[in-house]
């Protein structure tokens, strides 16, 4: 592929206009229901009524449809192409999940509905708690956290509650150099100081450094295993023993769970707290950056502190509350009766050791529906297959890339990988004069979403590649060929990659300009 000339695509010729610049005064899509009650004036006190209506767009439904559908065409998406974004697990999103999540019984269920009339939702959540407990190897689950970062915060707050309950004041949390940025950010928000643990030559935790830093001021070690380098830490048992030896908890960042399902479980590795990224491992569509969900699973010693509410199953015949009616309703239906599945809002009552709530209501139920459908579709055997093919695909792509461009883009650590791997673009930069960023931008012209770039920070010019289990061998081959073609092209003329992309709706954007003089909203006419 050569660099296209200056001829632009239709999209490129048109200036991007927002919905606020479209439409015309008086246009509308919404029609309010007729006022069917007597009009009463003065219901809002003077000074509290809005003086000027918010300047929202004024557009017809056809205009809205055309505007947003045209915008959709300016997005790259997983349904149309390979998206090997490392650490994000961009696996196929089954359409069944969207169909079942949209069933009115799920989608139009109010979160404050009486548990007796939300038994399907609570049964689903209970079964999901049980399934996630089995997958994690830890017996207790809270579905409440809304994202991985939220699960991390829950986990570190649980750690804080655990130590406080034992009368201990611990001050630091250990994280390895390769950790996701959310780990140290979470630690600060939970009131601890971050202490970094070095990596050893193989990319694992430097056990000597860990031993030196582990003392009774340490509350927790946060670890991803396999790490963001795609390497399973072979010293995990020793690491767990060191951390537990000083009375600290061991926290598992579940971002990379796709790599071990069926082979190992965080609970079996000695972790006390795990968060799941349901949007990664269990394929909630990423939605352009959310929503997700980040349930946590914990060991017995952490259980008393779990957030409220959890879903519980009452033993048969147990009475619940004083409101239970046992009579026929007006239409003859039996109403009331104790719920089998219930929300345990105040577990432990006033003496509860729970850390409380992390958000409103019960969590991202719509995500749970999709996750549950996924687990029911795959079963235990299917989840193991997911893991095996994810690791197979990653190693195959790695092998193809090493064969084609191994000298320019060497593997950062080790010989093989788990579900993802990190290449270093340092030789490419030095020898060809193109950076990892340039390679990424040129990949866009080949119709691929680039891998994660410049993460993890411990690798110079990093390229973190995670193909996932749902890609075919042909796709992996085509991707390896594209990288090889870009490298070959740069051997001849590095300028092409340096100025890429050429075929996208816009070309390289001035991010520095955006940050210097931030324009974060449309300036609207008065």
């Amino acid at each position, binding site marked *: 592929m050569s660099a296209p000339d200056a001829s632009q695509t239709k999209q*490129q010729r048109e200036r991007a206009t*927002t919905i606020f610049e479209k439409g015309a005064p008086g246009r509308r*899509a*919404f029609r*309010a229901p007729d*006022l069917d*009650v007597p009009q*009463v004036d003065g219901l*809002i006190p003077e*000074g*509290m009524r*809005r003086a000027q*209506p918010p300047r929202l767009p*004024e557009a017809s439904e056809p205009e809205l449809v055309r505007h*947003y*559908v045209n915008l*959709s*065409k300016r997005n790259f998406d997983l*349904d149309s192409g390979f998206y090997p974004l490392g650490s*994000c697990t961009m696996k196929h999103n089954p359409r069944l999940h*969207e169909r079942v999540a949209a069933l*009115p*019984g799920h*989608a139009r269920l*109010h979160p404050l509905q009486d548990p007796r*009339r939300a038994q*399907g939702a609570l049964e689903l959540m209970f079964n999901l708690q049980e399934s996630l407990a089995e*997958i994690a*190897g830890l017996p207790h689950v809270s579905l409440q956290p*809304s994202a991985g*970062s939220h699960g991390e915060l829950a986990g570190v707050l649980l750690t804080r509650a655990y130590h406080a309950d034992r009368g201990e004041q611990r001050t630091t949390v250990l994280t390895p150099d390769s950790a996701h940025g959310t780990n140290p950010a*979470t630690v600060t928000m939970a*009131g601890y100081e971050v202490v970094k643990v070095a990596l050893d030559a193989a990319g694992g935790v430097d056990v000597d450094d860990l031993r030196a830093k582990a003392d009774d001021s340490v509350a927790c070690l946060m670890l991803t295993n396999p790490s963001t380098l795609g390497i399973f830490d072979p010293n995990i048992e020793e690491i767990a023993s060191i951390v537990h030896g000083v009375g600290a908890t061991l926290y598992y960042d579940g971002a990379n769970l796709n790599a*071990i399902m069926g082979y*190992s479980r965080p609970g079996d590795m000695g972790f006390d707290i795990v968060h799941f990224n349901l949007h990664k491992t269990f394929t909630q*569509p990423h*939605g*352009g950056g*959310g929503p997700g969900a980040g349930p946590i699973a914990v060991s017995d010693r952490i259980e008393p502190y779990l957030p409220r509410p959890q879903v519980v199953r009452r033993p048969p015949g147990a009475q619940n509350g004083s409101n239970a009616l046992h009579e026929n*309703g007006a*239409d003859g239906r039996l109403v009331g009766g104790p719920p089998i599945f219930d929300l345990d809002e105040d577990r432990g009552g006033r003496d509860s050791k729970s850390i409380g709530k992390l958000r*409103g209501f019960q969590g*991202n*139920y*719509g*995500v749970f529906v999709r996750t549950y459908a996924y687990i029911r*579709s795959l079963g*235990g*055997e299917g*989840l193991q297959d*997911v893991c095996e093919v994810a690791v197979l695909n990653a190693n195959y792509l790695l*092998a193809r890339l090493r064969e084609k461009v191994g000298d320019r883009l060497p593997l950062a650590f080790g010989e*093989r990988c788990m579900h993802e791997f990190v290449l270093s673009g340092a030789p490419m930069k030095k020898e060809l004069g193109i950076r990892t960023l340039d390679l990424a931008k040129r990949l866009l012209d080949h119709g691929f979403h680039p891998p994660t770039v410049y993460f993890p920070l411990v690798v110079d010019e990093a390229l973190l590649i995670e193909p996932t289990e749902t890609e075919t*061998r042909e796709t992996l081959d085509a991707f390896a060929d594209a990288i090889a073609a870009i490298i070959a092209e740069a051997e001849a003329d590095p300028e092409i990659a340096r100025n890429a992309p050429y075929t996208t709706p816009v070309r390289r954007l*001035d*991010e520095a300009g*955006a*940050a210097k003089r931030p324009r974060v*909203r*449309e300036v609207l006419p008065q």
Partner: protein
Amino acid sequence: MAGYTAVTAEDLAIMLDAIGVGSIAELFEAIPAGVRLERPIDLPPGEPEQAVYAELRRLAELNTSAEDEITFLGGGMYDHYVPAIIDMLMSRSEFLTPYTPYQPEVSQGGLQIMFEYQTAISELTGLPVSNASVYEGPSAVGAAAYLAKLTNKRRKVLVSRGVHPHSRATLDTLAVGYGMEVVEVGLDDALTDLGALRGALSDDISAVILQQPNFLGAIEDVQAIADAAHEHGALVVCAADPLTLGVLEAPGHQGVDVVVGEGQSLGNRLDFGGPSFGFFAATEKHLRSMPGRIAGETTDADGRRGFVLTLQTREQHIRREKATSNICTSQALNALGGVVYLSWLGRRGIVELGELMLQRTHYARETLAALDGVDKLHERPVVREFALRLDADVGRVLERCAAAGVNAGYALGRSYDEYGDGLLVAITEQRSRADIDRLAEVLAAAVAAERAGAGAEVAA
């Protein structure tokens, strides 16, 4: 085997050969024997798509949704109509399946929508800067307290008892980590007690947090609270119901520094509580302390207008332990629903919708309060939700109403010990006068039945 992988026997042979191993098992050799799961994962076997559909449908049918009854449940999430255009757009692959827009050249659709969303939220709240959304409402309140701490380094937060119980509970949880103390300010006849607030204010208060309208539905005097707080240099945080802001003054025009809230009522489904989105807007000076993603406008190499994620140095992936928040993503898809909904409503529609809720709410409140055994819990002005007092056991009354196909609302005693006889009733544009009249009929009968046979347990 499972539905979504694609490795044939031939593929497997070629792939193992390329890797240089004899089996898949060899790829897992790094996992030490001591931590291996030496048995299959113990879950029910996988099932074909049609069987899974049937199971999820079975579960759905065990729920009584807003489709199955006339519901007046609110308390933070509301049964508004979600226009078909939103279903269509939110299910488009191009919006549903990408990740966070790390490569702006191929994410202009999503980024521009974030920019439009931020513009709409700024307009609605009356504040100049908005992020691209956070998880949901109550945790947005918690995030606002963290911004206050970063801003003035003070360690105490005052929160009105009129703020959603889940927001207050979330704040309590998070404040432990922030090292902040949360002090509640009580209500005086359903409004934040201004006298108590003034008494609690001092120069070590980081922020004052209120909700508009508050959990009892009452319209707060936001300006008076903001003025009192600012006298002591405290930030003012207001959790707002976005769909009331067509008729209620924007908190940003009443001295509020940070406006947050639950975005579900803007074109998002109830989904038993999530996913939805939280909005987060602030005054200009807080731009660099905001949590979460922010889209900004810029130009490309050819001078074309474009959009990027900007001010990323605030965020965890760069600033790590010094980040303004640990939040990674926004709730992009839900926020898309939000901005499409606001565009669909439009400048006139949001006022008309607010006015309709106002009128029907007034009608419902007066109609229900006229029933025997039913009184207003407070007389304060309301927009879309109001509180009643029942002279009968609220839980049992709700059961009786439910049996008649009407969900009469939320038993306030579930969250407020002092309102054990309270019922919170919410109105949306989907509840017509006929629905309200039906509620009145059913509620009257239920209260009467309870008062007649108070305490009697009737066997089924």
